[in-house]
C-alpha cells in the first residue's frame, strides 16, 4: 500500500520545527510501524537526505524507548500496543498519517521525533525504590505476600516508562507513571516501610520537573501500552494524603 506521511522535523532542541510530507510506497501490512519508517529512512539516506530521527530499541514493546504520536494519539491508539508493536495492517492504502514527538514541557525535543525523558528517571531517583543494599536480604519466602496483592503490584510494575501517559494528557501530567511506581512498591510489605517518604519525595520531584496537574480525564490509561489502571492514581492520592497527615 502507499501512504502519505506528515512528519515533525526539528533539527535541534531550540530550532523551529515543522511538518514535512513524505511518500511511503510499497508498504507491506506485516511491517511494524517502525519498520515502515526504517524503509522511508533508507530511501532518504540513498537520496543523501537526513533520515528521520526516532527512538526505538527492543522493538518488542517492553523497553519503553519508542514513542511517536500517530494521528494525534500516542503509540497510535491500539489497545495495549506500543508503537514498535503497531503493525501496518491497521492502516489502509492511501492513508495520510501524521507523526509527532511526545509534546510536554518536561520532555524537551532533542531532534525530530526524539525527546529527552530524563525527568522520569529523576522522579525514580527521588524515591522510586526500596532502600535495601545488596546483601543481607532475608530468605525470599520469609514474608508471605497474598497472591492478590502481588498480582496487583505486578499490574502496576508493568509500566515501561515510555511517557505516553504524559503525551496524551492535556496537562502533560505524569500522575499515572508516578502512581504506578508508588503502587507497585506500597502494595508489597517490603515497600510499606518507607511508603510515606517515598510518595512525598516522588510527588515533589514530579512537580519540580514541570509536569501538570491531574484532572482524571483518563486519557493516560487509554493510551498506556501496558494498560496501567487509572485507579492507581487514586491509590497514590490516598498514600499522599496519609503521608501528609503523618507529617512526612
Amino acid at each position, binding site marked *: 500500500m502507499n501512504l502519505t506521511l506528515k512528519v515533525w522535523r526539528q533539527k*535541534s532542541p531550540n530550532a523551529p520545527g515543522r511538518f514535512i510530507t513524505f511518500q511511503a510506497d510499497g508498504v*507491506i501490512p*506485516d511491517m*511494524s510501524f*517502525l*519498520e515502515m519508517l*526504517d*524503509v522511508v529512512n*533508507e530511501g532518504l*539516506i*540513498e537520496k*543523501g537526505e*537526513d*533520515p528521520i*530521527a526516532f*527512538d526505538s*530499541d*527492543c*522493538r*518488542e514493546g*517492553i*523497553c*519503553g*524507548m519508542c514513542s511517536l504520536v500517530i494521528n494525534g494519539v500516542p503509540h497510535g491508539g491500539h489497545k*495495549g500496543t506500543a508503537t514498535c*508493536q503497531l*503493525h501496518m495492517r491497521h492502516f489502509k492504502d492511501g492513508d495520510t498519517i501524521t507523526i509527532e514527538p511526545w509534546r510536554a514541557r518536561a520532555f524537551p525535543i532533542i*531532534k525530530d521525533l*526524539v525527546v529527552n*525523558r*530524563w525527568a522520569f*528517571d529523576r522522579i*525514580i*531517583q*527521588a524515591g*522510586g*525504590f*526500596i*532502600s535495601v*543494599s*545488596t*546483601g543481607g*536480604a*532475608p530468605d*525470599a*519466602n520469609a*514474608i*508471605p505476600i*497474598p*497472591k492478590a496483592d*502481588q498480582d496487583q*503490584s*505486578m499490574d502496576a*510494575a*508493568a509500566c515501561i516508562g515510555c511517557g505516553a501517559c504524559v503525551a496524551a494528557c492535556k496537562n502533560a501530567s505524569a500522575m499515572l507513571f508516578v502512581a504506578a511506581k508508588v503502587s*507497585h*512498591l506500597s502494595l*508489597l510489605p*517490603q*515497600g510499606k516501610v518507607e511508603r510515606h517518604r517515598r510518595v512525598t519525595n516522588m510527588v515533589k520531584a514530579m512537580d519540580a520537573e514541570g509536569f501538570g496537574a491531574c484532572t482524571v480525564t483518563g486519557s493516560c490509561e487509554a493510551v498506556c501500552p501496558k494498560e496501567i489502571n487509572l485507579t492507581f492514581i487514586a491509590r497514590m492520592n490516598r498514600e499522599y494524603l496519609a503521608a501528609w497527615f503523618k507529617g512526612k
Partner: protein
Amino acid sequence: MNLDAKIPSGPLEKKWDRYRLEMKLVNPANKRKFDVIVVGSGLAGASAAASLAELGYNVQCFCFQDSPRRAHSIAAQGGINAAKNYTNDGDSIFRLFYDTIKGGDFRAREANVYRLAQVSVNIIDQCVAQGVPFAREYGGLLANRSFGGAQVSRTFYARGQTGQQLLLGAYQALSRQIGLGAVKMYPRTEMLDVVLIDGHAKGVVARNLVTGEISSHAADAVVLATGGYGNVFYLSTNARGCNVTAIYRAFKKGAAFANPCYTQIHPTCIPVSGDHQSKLTLMSESLRNDGRVWVPKSTGDKRPPRQIPESERDYYLERKYPSYGNLAPRDISSRAAKEVCDEGRGVGSGGLGVYLDFADAINRLGQRTIAERYGNLFSMYETITGENAYEVPMRIFPAVHYTMGGLWVDYHLMSTIPGLFVLGEANFSDHGANRLGASALMQGLADGYFVIPYTIGHYFVSAKQAKASTSHPEFKKAEEEVKVRTEKLLSIRGRRTVTSLHRELGKLLWDKCGMARHEAGLKEALRKIPELREEFWRNANVPGENQDFNQALEQAGRVADYMEFAELLCLDALNRRESCGGHFRTEFQTEDGEALRDDQNFAFVSAWEYQGPAKPPALHKEPLVYEEVKMTQRSYK
C-alpha cells in the same frame, strides 16, 4: 598471553568461601578514593554499579539508551533459575551446577559455574527485598516452574516479564545511588574505546550521542557489562542497539576474546515475514511447558493445521527425546526444527516454521489457565502475526538469541587486561557452548550483585596502581583515534546504506555460521567477509555530521565493528573441529545426527589475541579441567 584463571584451590564447594576469606579488602573509609567506570546498565551493569556505589566506591555508569531502564535485559521473558528447592523436587546447588555444566556441553569453567549456582539463592532473596513482584501461590509463598533443559522446577518468574521486573529492581537500586550522588550516570553516551596506562585499564573514551562530543573518563578500574553480539547476524532477538563495539574495542586493546563461535539459536521465535524485518521476536520458551511442537509427517502437506489428523502429525521432539520431550535444551530443539524444515516439512509461507500447539493443554487445563500463564505472550503473538493462538497453533522458528562467547575472564571476572572486568553476557565463562533457559538473568545478577563487589576490591589492593588522569597522553591518543575513525565513516559518502551492508553480512553468517556449520562454508564466509568489509569502507553511505544527534553514524560505527568481528567468529568456528552445544559442525555428528564432541582435542577455551590489523589473531588455549564432574555425552533421550 597468560591465561591463568586464578581458580582457588580446595574442594569445589569451598572455593568461593576460600576466595572470600583470602581476598584483600579495601577499608570502608578508603573505598571512596577509588573510581569505577561501569559500561552498560542491564542486569549485570546496573546491579554492579548499584552494589559498588553502596559499598562506597565512586561510580560512573554509561549507557547508549536514553535511560538505564531500557537495557535489553528488560526483554527477557521466562524466568530466573535458583537452587532454592522450594518445590521439594530434588534440586540443590550441585544439581543446578551440574545441569548448567551439562547444558553447556562441558565447555564452561567448572569453578565459575559452581559459584553461579551457589549465589543463585541470594539473588532471589535480594530481588524480593527490592520489591520484584515474583509470581506467588495462594499461600503467599513464591511460585516456581520448570524451564527448558531442566527436570526440576527451579525457575522464578514474574508473568512473562521476568527480565523487566529484575531490571527495574536493579535500575531502582541504581537510581537510588544516582539520587544519592554515588553514581554519575551518562545516558545516551556510547563507549568507543578503553584506555590503558602501563598495561592497566584506566578509563574510557565515549561519545555523547546527542551532541557528538567525544570525552575521556578516567578511573581505577573499568567494568564492561555491554551484553552480547547477536546482532552481528543482523536479524536476532536482540534490541536494535545491542552491539559488539565495547568488547571488540577492548579486544583490539589486548583483551582475549573467548569462544566467539558459541552462539545460541533460540527455538521459539516468530518466523521471519519479509526483507523489511528489523528484528525477530522471541516467544518465551516457557511456552514449551504446555505447548507441543509438531510438523506434518509428509512433506509438502499444506492443509491448515486443524485439518491434519493426529496420526499424520510428527511430534518430533517427543519422538526423538522421550524423557525431555518438548523441554529439550535450546540447541537441540533448534537443530531439530531446522532438520524437519530442511526435509520440506516446515509450515507457514516459505516453509521456515514449525507448530507450537496448545490445543491439548487448553483441553486439559482450560483456556483460562493457559491465559493466566501465557496471556501476554499470546497477545504479543497476535499483535505481530494477526493470528489467535488459542484457536490455531503458533508458528515458531529458531533465531539468534544469545551469545555464550565473550571476553575471556578469570575467576575474578577480570579480562587479560588488568583492571578491565567483564560481566554478564559480555564475558564467556558460565554457559559453555549452550546456555540453559532462565540462566542469563541469573548470571547477569550473580556477576553484578555478588561477584564484582568482592573481586574489584581485591584488585585495587593488590594492583597498587597510581591514579590516572584524563590529561595523560594515552587518553588524548585514544580520543584522537576515535575522532579520526568517526570522520572517516562520515567521509565515505558511498552509495549503499549501512543497513543493506549489515543485512548482507548477517545473511552470510546465518547461512554459513548459523545453526549448522561446515568447513567449506566457513572458508567461503572467511573469504567474503573481508570483501564486504572493504565495500563497507569504500561504499557505505553515512549521512550527516558528527556534532549532531546522528543515529546513522551510531549504527555505522557498530556495523564497522561487526565487519571485523564476523571474521573472528567464523575463524573460531572453523578452528573448532568438533560439534558442541550451539556450535554444530555437520562433519562432526553421531550416527543419529547428534553433536559429536571431541574431548580429546577440544576440551579447551579458545582465547583469541589481537595481533594488529593485517595479521590473523593468535589462538591461546585454556584447558578445561573438571575436578568434580565427569564429561559425558549429553543425552536428552
